[in-house]
């Protein structure tokens, strides 16, 4: 029964296949982690409802794309806008009234959102398995034996990089980006230079929701299943990626997400005594290890104790 002999697969083709897989999923985790980081950076709150907001977006995209027959690009774009609008509304109604420096009530509100949105999706679209079509063409860019790089794999990776680039550009070059950085750096001083803090954070929530929706829409076709629980383990992987990257660094989120993807598909699959069911466990272990050993992660700023 308990055959825990340590052996590590070293077949190079298999290894390459797993590395490519790691990048494919990891880019998706990184993109969702980017959404988490945007909100954490601005408000110091971990948004436990981020995955569920993305879930809602994915179902809207499914309803538009599969139900109404829209082109999938357009369906995803509209669902990104819809969840961004919803997130802006959520920020205004249930987040802004709370004291931003007291994180506990805010976390509890995001937990309430988690339950409410998850249940809303399950009630509206029922819990049957569905499938969201991919935005990318089928087939492979290249393949070597069992290892193959699909167009969708490449597409997700490039999309994640593009999102990172867009976020960085937005933060560095635009006025709202400057406001966002100022608010995340020093809330009171941001007010004193005339920045309207509420709408700035609202913008952050909306942007994060759009990013999260896109991340989910990229990832779900790869998982081959769409049901109301699909974002849950993804959220844990994304949290692990965000923690590894440093929680407040956009670049760290993408890199951390990819690393977590690699850990999941290379380390967990190759080392025989780690059962593959425990890949979520590996992500949790990463979170634990990072927070214990180096709370600022790979790229985070070191003012970490925002308790």
């Amino acid at each position: 029964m308990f055959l825990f002999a340590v052996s590590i697969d070293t077949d190079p083709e298999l290894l390459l296949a797993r590395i490519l897989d790691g990048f494919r999923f990891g880019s998706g985790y990184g993109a969702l982690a980017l959404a988490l980081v945007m909100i954490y950076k601005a408000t110091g709150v971990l948004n436990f409802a981020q995955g569920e907001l993305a879930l809602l977006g994915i179902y809207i995209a499914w309803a538009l794309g599969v139900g109404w027959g829209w082109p999938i690009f357009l369906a995803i774009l509209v669902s990104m806008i819809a969840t961004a609008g919803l997130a802006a509304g959520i920020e205004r109604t249930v987040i802004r009234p709370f004291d931003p420096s007291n994180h506990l009530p805010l976390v509890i509100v995001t937990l309430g959102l988690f339950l409410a949105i998850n249940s809303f999706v399950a009630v509206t679209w029922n819990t049957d398995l569905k499938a969201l079509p991919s935005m990318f063409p089928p087939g492979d860019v290249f393949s070597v034996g069992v290892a193959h790089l699909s167009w969708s794999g490449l597409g997700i990776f490039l999309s994640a990089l593009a999102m990172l680039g867009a976020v960085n550009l937005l933060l560095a070059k635009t006025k709202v980006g400057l406001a966002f950085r100022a608010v995340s750096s020093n809330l009171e001083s941001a007010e004193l230079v005339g920045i309207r803090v509420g709408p700035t954070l609202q913008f952050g929530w909306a942007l994060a929701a759009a990013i999260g929706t896109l991340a989910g829409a990229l990832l779900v076709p790869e998982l081959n299943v769409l049901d109301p629980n699909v974002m849950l383990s993804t959220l844990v992987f994304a949290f692990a990626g965000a923690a590894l990257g440093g929680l407040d660094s956009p670049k760290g989120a993408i890199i951390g997400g990819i690393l977590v993807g690699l850990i999941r598909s290379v380390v967990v699959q190759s080392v025989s005594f780690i059962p593959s069911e425990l890949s979520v466990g590996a992500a949790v272990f990463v979170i634990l290890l990072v927070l214990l050993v180096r709370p600022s992660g790979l790229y985070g700023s070191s003012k970490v104790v925002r308790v």
Partner: protein
Amino acid sequence: MTEALLHVANLEASYGEVKVLHGIDFTVRKGDISVVLGANGAGKTTTLRAICGQVQTTGSITFAGAEISGESTADIVRRGIAHVPQGRGTFPELSVTDNLEAGAFVRRDDEVAADIDKWLDVFPVLASRRDQLAGSLSGGEQQMLAVARAMMSRPDLLLLDEPSLGLAPIIIEDLFERLSAINRTDGMTMLIVEQNANLALAVASHAYVLEAGTIAISGEPEDLSGDEAIRRAYLGY
């Protein structure tokens, strides 16, 4: 007698149940440097926060002829009040130039870049560190940055909350000289809150002494520093 830029009447402010200001009146005239002196807990910081709409207040605050009490901080800044908060309040994760740019957030003209150069000229220590993160500057440099950032909004009134706090004496002197120069060359009206009465009175055109949330004395700086009893009781030197 020049016109009053800021007029505060019967101002009360409280944090929750605790009342900090008990109905104070004062005026800042255009072009003046007015100072508010007082011990810890007298309500100096609260006075500035009240002007900026950061605490709950009753009473009247008139700025440039308009009633501003009850307005949001963002709107008050747009009216032309800049506030250098206690402890500098720079954006530590932003570079020096980004800090200055953030200071010009409310402006819509295209002279922001020129203004950044201007203030880097005024404070050459900042020019040599323009791409450094503000958090890596020394205390004195951060205070210069905070002043420059406030000036970037091209305000009509500059509020300074204990600019000397935590700085070495030689840097404080330098800072007050610069403030005085800005006052002369740009005609900038200032309201400075200080514990360091000696220096503040040296640059001031009018002074108020705040004690336990009420104005105890007001007058010309020479009268205050000249009066032995006042000096001993309130100014501590």
